[in-house]
């Protein structure tokens, strides 16, 4: 479901853990970003952040229960792209995830998604109890 109102494109999708559905959503959002002149670097970071958020929602949130969808909402305007990624899980404490960049954690194969989201997006916050990620990317100000 999506529409354009005033100065933004907004919509939502409830998706299953199916690569085709995730890819179709990614392509749709990338087209909206391209139409609003978000650059290659912004689109790379947003695509990666959405992928990490959606995968976390299915794995850690929904515990891979195929009956549980992940909901994605977006609102994309000329300068800001906002997203909500909501799973059906019980939530978690994002601050309890070990820092994957510490030398002693470098060889652990998981736990990097949240730090990538926090790095690439301008803002990212989990709403209590931790099953609802809100994140946004703001275009850098031009001089």
């Amino acid at each position, binding site marked *: 479901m999506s529409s354009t109102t005033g100065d933004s494109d907004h919509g939502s999708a409830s998706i299953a853990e199916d*690569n085709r559905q*995730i*890819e179709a959503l990614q392509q749709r959002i990338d087209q909206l970003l391209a139409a609003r002149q978000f650059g*290659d*670097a912004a689109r*790379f970071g947003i*695509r*990666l952040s959405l*992928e*990490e958020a959606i*995968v976390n929602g299915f794995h850690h949130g929904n515990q891979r229960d195929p009956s549980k969808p992940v909901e994605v909402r977006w609102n994309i305007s000329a300068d800001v792209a906002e997203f909500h990624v909501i799973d059906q899980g019980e939530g978690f404490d994002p601050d309890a995830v070990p820092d*994957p*960049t510490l*030398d002693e954690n*470098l*060889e*652990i*194969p*998981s736990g*990097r*998604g949240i*730090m*990538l989201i926090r*790095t690439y997006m301008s803002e990212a916050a989990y709403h209590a109890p931790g099953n609802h990620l809100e994140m946004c990317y703001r275009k850098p100000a031009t001089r």
Partner: protein
Amino acid sequence: MTTAPSRIRVVDVNGVMRVEFTDRDILDEPSIRQIGAELTRAIEAANAPRVLICFQGVEHLSSAALGALITVNSLIKKRGGQLRLSNIKPSIYEVFVITKLHKLFQVFDTAEQAMQGFGRA
């Protein structure tokens, strides 16, 4: 039962297992699991494997793909071998830097540079 098409190409170059990907995006878990399984099979069939993974043509990479690389690196080290990476485009290399994994892996600009001193004389 059908077999999924291979997601990697593996060629022997002077005793080095050179690996390339067939996909532009290494994001989704089924693909990553398949790549991990194919690499594991190839590595376990070799003694002290020297492996070069060339990222030519790869546009996107997720943290799950990084996890698979870490697992493959551990397996290669356990078997007395060595892993090198090459041809990583700048936007993807930035992901390695953010996660500090550039410290864990030996990364070269080109496959030719990675091959220097790596293959059989």
